[in-house]
């Protein structure tokens, strides 16, 4: 297999994988970045959300061969010490229950605030409705997005 060069969290990395491998599994199994989660594999739950050139993207259906050198940001690259405004808001609101979906929620929220620093409730709902939280922490998630927007 030819090596594929990727730009992940500001670093250039090279992986030897089947070009049809979804980015999700390249991150998790080959680059050991396991913060990006597998939930459904069909871009329905958002647990695998990353940023591709600052836009939220479901990595479970994104083929590694299609990414080229575009900038991938994962939860591990969102901030140095977990101090991105969205992460801080998540901590302040004590959002998580099981916590499994939250990295995907955070990545979607961070991408939203990058493109729209002051979203309305309706815009938050529209952007965040691609992410499922089976524990039902949606009200705290919504509040955390608003809190992060204020800190921006």
């Amino acid at each position: 297999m030819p090596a594929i060069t990727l730009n992940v969290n500001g670093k250039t990395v090279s992986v030897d994988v089947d070009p049809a491998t979804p980015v999700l599994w390249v991150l998790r199994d080959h680059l050991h970045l396991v913060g990006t989660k597998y939930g459904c594999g069909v871009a329905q739950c958002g647990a695998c959300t990353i940023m591709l050139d600052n836009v939220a993207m479901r990595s479970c259906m994104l083929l590694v061969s299609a990414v080229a050198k575009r900038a991938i940001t994962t939860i591990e690259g969102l901030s140095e010490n977990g101090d991105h405004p969205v992460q801080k808001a998540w901590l302040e609101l004590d959002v998580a229950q099981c916590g499994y979906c939250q990295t995907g929620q955070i990545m979607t929220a961070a991408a939203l605030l990058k493109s729209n620093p002051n979203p309305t409730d309706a815009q938050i709902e529209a952007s965040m409705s691609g992410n499922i939280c089976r524990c039902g922490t949606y009200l705290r998630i919504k509040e955390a997005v608003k809190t992060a927007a204020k800190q921006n």
Partner: protein
Amino acid sequence: MATTQSRRNFLKVSALAGGGMLISFNLLNLPAEAHALEEILFTPNAYIKIAADGSIVLLAPNPEIGQGVKTSLPMIVAEELGVDWKKIKVELAPLDSRMGRQTAGGSGSVRGRFNELRTVGATAREMLTTAAAQSWNVPVTECTVENGEVIHKASGRKLSFAALASAAAKLEVPAKPTLKDPKEFKLIGTRVQDVDAHKIVTGQPLFGIDTRREGMLFAMVSRPPAYGKTLGEVNDAAALKVEGVKKVVKIKNAVAVLATSTWAAKKGRDALVIQWNASEKLENSAEHFATFKTMLDKPTATPHRNDGDVDAAKQGAAKNLDVTYEIPTLSHGQMEPLNFFANVKDGKVELFGPTQVPGAVRSEVSKLLGIAEEHITISSPRQGGGFGRKLMTDNGVEAALISAAAQAPVQVQWTREDDMQNDFYRPAEMWRYRAALSATDLLAWHQSGVGIGRGVRGDSYVAGAIANYRAEGQGLTSNTPTGWWRAPGANTLAFVAESFMDEVCVALKKDPVAFRLELLKKAKEQTVGKINYDPEKYKSVIDLVAKMSKWGTKKPGVFRGFSTWFSFGSYVAQVVDVQMVDGQPKISNVYCAVNCGRVINLSGAENQVQGSIVDGICHAMFPKVTFVNGAVAETNFHTYKFLRMKDVPSDIEVQFVQSDEAPTGLGEPGLPPVAPALANALFAATGKRLRKLPFAEQLA
């Protein structure tokens, strides 16, 4: 209760290497030799570890599935111990027979361990205090504890727990440590952030799916595509050609493909050519419901409760109600698809993965592999949801069998589709409800239910409140598997019983809150037979939610539904407000009052109840499992629909009845009243009585 036992029998204290104290809690009264110093040092089975370097580690004994016990259980220990919560570390304990019931289920972790864990903390605090008093040569009663230090106020002296740990470990375990006066609680009842919050928001490896070990292979498994089918001929030639695939092994009724990555394992699994033979009937949901109807029409069921004379009351009634409710099969859909790590090697087994019942997994693996339990270690990481799915042992046991067959350490990963087709489902049910009414009162109540599996059973508060009451349940044998799903029994019974109660109120033109209070007053003052609930506690939540929601006042355009339910020791009452937006009902607000005894972690408790309400709305509105020739038609989240942020009410207000009683369950009790409160609000808004779940497909 633990505190009445001899302390000698179940609390052991020893020194850690390099100085320090370790307290382990022994409910099973292990032989004394098991507690030899050196052994304890290397067995991470204690609740409290105090090391010479000042670090204090508290172990959370029960699986963390999102219900918050990795935070709330150590809070109880920390409260009695008197440490600064910000400075302690918390770890999940592995399975250890000295830790009692290490299960996550039945909303039992906090209510089952409150007294034990207080004693554990108090014992350590008392020994540390004694050690300080002895070193200062002052009476113990003059010493106090604060933030991990023992203080002698009169002389202004202080010693840290770390400095005292070695001396404390040499002391006799107090026979009856004094528990704090709850009025002095500083931590219990406050808002405490989840102990893993920082790791969660930074994406650190916390979950079973994140397990990585030296030499580990990833496995995917081909299991029967329908219930009733068994494994036939297998051709693995194409699978073995997939780059990265190392092995293919057969276990029981399945075939596993082991590879160097998840994706290679999946490609290999999908390349298997397998003949699946129909060895049993391939069942259909439509047939289940048709059979339910026939069963409910026949008066064959033996009642589990039969007060007074229901038939006579029906004959003399001014009006009789007779309605039928339908409840679909549900999958658990926990966000983390099942997985498990197993390494079977040289007669020993290491198991690590998501389970609510580590003890049951170990016991089953021991029997199947013929390896004694003492050679099997098992622990579970933080888990991406449980909801009852991991009360079944299949994922852990399967991983052990694969590792044994392949002779390799293996991480078995399920796809979402695997999860949907291989669940132990919340069974489908059908209920027929009948009531005999006079012009002003409920004369008789008759409920008759049937469900897949062992059958349905249970009563609402109506049992005990009225003279004529009959309840009966039946089961329908099926090869579709059933299991526990959050608030088992209660989650369906509350829907039918509390929806029907609303129908009774409508027919009698009674206020739903006032009428329930009337019934509970009767249950208290003129109890018929036995009751399994406390009418006063029921009243406490009904009164509180009526106050919170300003029940009885009219808001233009707002339609309300009410419901109340008692489960897992806790009482919950809810009001759901619905508004019509563009001709469609939209839930605007939910008010919820809870009586669960003392609240441990207010942040976690509120989150659990709000989450239960969202969960309740979700499953009342959207998903259902349909069996078609033994296969589940809803294979993933595109057809098995979950609620999303846009469907959440604008506000869910939760209040707890102030209580000094010991805590009762909280992971489940918030869920059962939701579906009926919503159904009752939708009836108020639309005039349409929804007797079938889920609702969304009937509203479109």
